[in-house]
């Protein structure tokens, strides 16, 4: 690595650190990003201006993620809300060699097997998108309104367990936030403690 590369790398590291120091706050503009999806396509948040966007942090090996996929709960949410025009972006920030890291092909196979239906899956093995949003857990959910404002962040629902049996009696915070925001109401529970496994960052 020559000096130029080294200083570029240092700059990138600094940018990453600066980015992680920014707070992701309800009512603030959601940080913009560009990421590559599991089909190799570039996805920009700005492409979806005018639409509601859901971000779902994902790790297919995590028991809390499995709770919502093996029960079909996450797929129902994905299908239900994308049918209403919501953009659903699943994000995988697991670093190579950690739980939940998958190749694009493996992820597309998983989507097929699980009958999952996000708009796209963003591959974030370097963790930059995760750090940008301070994503802590899988799942960790974010809802962005058509103006690009963050209107919800936190847990998927109000039962912080890995037990599928709890889903039926749970209040789903993402659906509630979308319903309220779509009808022009303030989101009552706009920020909750996300629950699940830690995101398996490289650093």
């Amino acid at each position, binding site marked *: 690595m020559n000096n130029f590369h080294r200083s570029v790398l240092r700059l990138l590291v600094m940018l990453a650190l600066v980015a992680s120091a920014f707070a992701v706050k309800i009512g603030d503009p959601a940080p913009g990003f560009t990421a590559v999806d599991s089909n190799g396509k570039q996805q920009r948040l700005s492409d979806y201006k005018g639409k509601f966007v859901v971000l779902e942090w994902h790790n297919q090996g995590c*028991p809390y993620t*499995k709770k919502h996929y093996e029960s079909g709960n996450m797929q129902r949410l994905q299908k239900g809300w994308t049918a209403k025009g919501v953009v659903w972006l699943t994000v995988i920030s697991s670093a190579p060699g950690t*739980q939940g890291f998958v190749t694009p092909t493996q992820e597309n196979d998983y989507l097929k097997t699980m009958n999952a239906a996000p708009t796209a899956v963003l591959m974030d093995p370097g963790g930059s998108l*995760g750090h940008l949003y301070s994503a802590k857990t899988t799942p960790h959910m974010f809802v962005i309104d058509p103006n690009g404002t963050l209107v919800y*962040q936190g847990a998927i629902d109000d039962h912080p367990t890995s037990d599928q049996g709890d889903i039926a009696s749970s209040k789903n915070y993402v659906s509630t936030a979308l319903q309220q925001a779509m009808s022009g109401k303030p989101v009552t529970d706009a*920020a909750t*403690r996300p629950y699940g496994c830690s995101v398996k960052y490289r650093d």
Partner: protein
Amino acid sequence: MLALAVASAAQAPPQHARVELLSRQEAASAGTDLELGVHFALDPGWHIYWVNPGDSGQPPVLKWQLPVGVTAGALEWPRPERMQPSAELADFGYHDDVLLPIALHTGKSTSPGSSIDISADARWLICREVCIPERAQLHLAVPVAATAKLNPQSAPMFARTEKLLPQPLPRGWKAWVQSGKEDFKLTLATGKTITAAQFFPLDPGQIDNPSPQKVHPTVTGFTMSLKKSDLLLKPITVLRGVLVVPGGAAYRIEAPVRQSVQ
């Protein structure tokens, strides 16, 4: 499907923890409290979580089945350790070995010669690089005698655990919080300077767990800056948690929060 096969492991015997009910007393006596504990012995490198797990994880949950007339108090939580798997998050929990004490009120109807049969359905999340939900059915029968008697095997562990349980603030000590724009400033006044301390919040979503806790010693104690959580959207009136000071003593605090005049 592999995923389903792994999921059913939750019903299998625990893989990374040996969990048992222990009694501090070899024999209980009618009308006095029985000191029980749930003992977790964890495989090296694995951890379980405190009552507030921090940014990820989940605390152990116990469902008790007790004889008629016997009631359980609240589970007690020794001071946790802080774990920081990445810049994004900090968790609170235990490695290696932990005893969670709980008092059982035996009632007057228990008679010498009988026994108190206790069962608990225990569920906990255990993590190293990955997390696994584990579960076990725990049982213990404690004989009832005319007078209570310590169990020589388990009593030392209860005694060690007592030193790790958060205590009320000593008389004359005072804790309060000034709420700023980005931070809570927690002040502890004890009468003498304290150079280091660690705060574990009891309620989630109030402070930003991974942020460094900056301690400024003062003549009478210290002030500590705690960054507010992004999840905190409304002012709070009390900051509850556990303060651990040098030497390892742990104190429960419920510090009133004053809003700064802008």
